[in-house]
């Protein structure tokens, strides 16, 4: 057990002790839970992060609406404690769910029926122990790959050179904390995050990272926790520019904002998993004219797109003038464009024209 794990185990034990204290005092056993509803999420302009506020609520045992959830909370707390104490391998949150799902004798019901019941309680525990899920030995499936001038020593002892990862690139591991994924060398001039694998692959084939001495990362669409946490580490540990390159549509814009500022429903995770220094490099509406992107690549915005644009425009972290203008321009333009579509100019256009021009002209914003 690492020192960090010991710290967490102590906190979890304290949760149990507090409940016992309530019982002994003849009080209704309760624990304090930080609210994660929208009303307790705010955008902290100073740090550029979506954060969770301090609003707390008591979860009681002797309360018809809360009794089961209280029980489930204690079950998850004790299970995480046991797993850490016994130094078990990391589990997925679905696996944790299965280790606890069983029938409560005499109640005719299970401790948990659906993973939707255990997942929010795991988040409660992250907040109670002030730790990342990964520190509780729980992982999510990573999807990303990256390549570029970086050497990492893995917890397994393997040394990974991301300039030598072949055409597949190096896979992002589920846990990227320093204990697990220790960056030994890193000499990139900047980091380029690409929304889609197909675009990453094209750039990787053309050795874009080598020609431009950068790190090239993709989360294959909406990034998972590991890619976000990794970019956050890069942002903190290396003072090099970070650019995010997505589709020109509200979904692409939002992916950028998740890398940069975090997300609403994982607001408590933002501080550790967002990268406020990230800049948006494109696609942007003014690129359409400047790079003469052909009409046939334009795809009409649909109702869902417009609805999503409205939503995004109302988020505090999109309130900056540049973004409000971008959203207004997109609405006026009426079409979305995928980053894949740049091949309609030429196959090499992205690597040889678009990205170099954008970076050279500092044509990005945040």
């Amino acid at each position: 057990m690492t020192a960090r794990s010991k710290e967490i185990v102590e906190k979890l034990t304290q949760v149990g002790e507090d409940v016992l204290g309530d019982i002994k005092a003849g009080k209704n056993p309760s624990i304090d839970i930080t609210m994660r509803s929208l009303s307790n999420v705010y955008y902290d302009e100073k740090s550029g992060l979506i954060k969770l506020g301090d609003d707390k609520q008591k979860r009681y045992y002797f309360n018809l609406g809360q009794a089961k959830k209280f029980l489930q909370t204690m079950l998850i707390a004790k299970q995480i404690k046991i797993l850490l104490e016994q130094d078990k391998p990391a589990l997925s949150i679905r696996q944790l769910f299965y280790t606890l799902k069983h029938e409560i004798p005499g109640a005719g019901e299970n401790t948990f029926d659906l993973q939707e019941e255990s997942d929010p309680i795991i988040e409660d525990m992250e907040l109670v122990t002030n730790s990342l899920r990964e520190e509780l030995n729980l992982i999510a499936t990573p999807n990303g790959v990256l390549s570029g001038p970086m050497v990492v020593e893995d917890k397994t002892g393997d040394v990974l050179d991301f300039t030598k990862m072949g055409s597949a690139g190096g896979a992002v591991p589920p846990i990227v904390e320093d204990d697990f994924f220790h960056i030994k060398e890193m000499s990139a001039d900047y980091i380029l995050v690409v929304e889609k694998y197909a675009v990453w692959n094209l750039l990787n084939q053309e050795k874009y990272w080598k020609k431009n001495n950068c790190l090239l990362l993709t989360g294959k669409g909406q990034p998972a926790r590991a890619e976000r946490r990794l970019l956050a580490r890069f942002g903190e540990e290396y003072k090099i520019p970070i650019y995010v390159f997505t589709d020109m549509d509200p979904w692409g814009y939002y992916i950028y904002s998740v890398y940069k500022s975090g997300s609403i429903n994982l607001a408590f995770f933002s501080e550790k998993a967002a990268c406020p220094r990230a800049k948006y490099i494109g696609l942007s509406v003014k690129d359409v004219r400047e790079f003469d992107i052909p009409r046939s690549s334009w795809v009409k915005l649909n109702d869902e797109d417009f609805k999503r644009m409205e939503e995004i425009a109302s988020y505090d972290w999109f309130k900056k003038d540049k973004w409000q203008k971008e959203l207004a321009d997109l609405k006026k333009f009426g079409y979305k464009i995928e980053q894949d579509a740049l091949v309609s100019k030429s196959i090499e256009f992205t690597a040889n024209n678009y990205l170099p021009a954008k970076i050279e002209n500092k044509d990005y914003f945040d």
Partner: protein
Amino acid sequence: MTPAKAGTKAEAKVEAKLPKADSPIAVELAKKQKAISVAEFFEKNRHMLGFDSLPRCLITCVKEAVDNALDACEESQILPDIYIRVRKVDERILNVVIEDNGPGVQKDVLPRVFGKLLYGSRFHAIRQSRGQQGIGISAAVLYAQLTSGKPVRITSRIDPKLPAYVYELKIDTQTNEPKLLSENYDDFFTSRGTRIELNMEATYVRGRQSVMEYLKNTAIVNPHARITFVDPYDERVIFERACDVLPKQPIEIKPHPHGIELGTLIKMLQSTDNLKLSSFLSLSFAKIGGHTMDSICKEANLDPAMAPQDLAQDIDGVKRLMAAFQKIKIQAPPKDCLSPITGDLLKKGLTQNHRVDFISTVSRPVNVSRGNPFLVEAAIAYGGDIDTEGRAEIYRIANRVPLMYQQGACAITHAIERINWKNYNMEQPKGAKMPQGPIMIMVHVASTNVPFTSESKDAIADIPELEDEIELAVREAARDLGRYLAEQKKALDARKKIKMFEAYTKELAIALQDLTGKDHAVIEAQLRDVLAKKFTKFIDTDEPVKQEAANDSPQ
């Protein structure tokens, strides 16, 4: 041809011989004009009287005869005992017999009662009765002779000491008068009552719209009647009495001022024997006493001492009187012109035929619509042997007569459909107009003049004040049902909750042992203790608990 003197008031007189003038068209046309007998009219339009499909013709015939039998028995303070038999004559023709223990029909009027349309005793009486227009049974006779070619046979005995007469008769449709074909004694006929036997083209069916269903529902709403039915397969069903007391006889009343129409009022003013408006008002209307009369005359600016006939000439004066009727507060018409089934008997009637878990009945007070007093009764039954699967069973009753057809066009159905049954803890799928589950809703509308949508008396018209009353009655019964269902649910829930908390507590104690190393048995005992001492209450009460906010964040 010269016109009659200008300005004279003259009765029209049809001259037999028309003068041959030089205006041939109108004169030729006039020759063809003639009066049509009402029997001819309804012979041609018999679907208007409920004689359309073959199964329905049988139901209509039985219904008219049974209605008459019940009306006659009640008027004569006799507990009804009615016998119905249906037999097959051939592939096309059924033989139908309806026999009662009623007062019988006096020899002299009997032929017209059965053999003349628009002949009856109840048309002008303002009082609740089943039959009213003097059309029903004669229409059955008309239909029977039209389709079988045979006369109907009526047997009637008005006193055990007198013989029973047997008549065979038809209706002469050209004159709408009865035609007797034979007249005889029947020495074997029961002590008193009437028997009618008809041969008609009709079909016997079972199911939702059938003679059997009609009789079953009739028995429910007439719990004082015994009804015996022998079907074409010689199977006998007896619907026994649920009570031995006759319903209170409805009293005939005078018209109520609310809703009387201008033309009717003028007619009454013209034909009254009263010399003064004041006595006319007090004596011709229900619920106009001296004080009310004064207020009305003052409001209408009319002299109470004026002659009613003079007022009849002054349309504006009559209109003012009408307006005063609406403006001055007048008591509701007397309730005794109506004969409610009453909640108790409705319950008895229903439970005689169904095993149910819950029943609630409601009798609304008398109300007025278009000058006609009416009242609404409702019963809701739940559970027991009522079908759990389908949608609600609706029973519609008008003046103690079950309505079998056109449920969708009826004010009763529409009123029930207005209700959101979820408010009464019933299931009602999205978009469904009726509640689902083992529920039966019975509504009885009693009125001196039930407003049917057509003369076949299938459905009650959507008169707003009537529909509102039906809705109120059903809602009142539904509230009881809602409370019952809520209590059922609460009792069940409380039992479940206690059991659940015991199980949770065991599980929680073990989790806390894992978390803290303390012994789970001790923790469990402490938890039980705290629960018992301080927190049992919340299990029983449905006290709303400040819920933890759900994680409602988007994306």
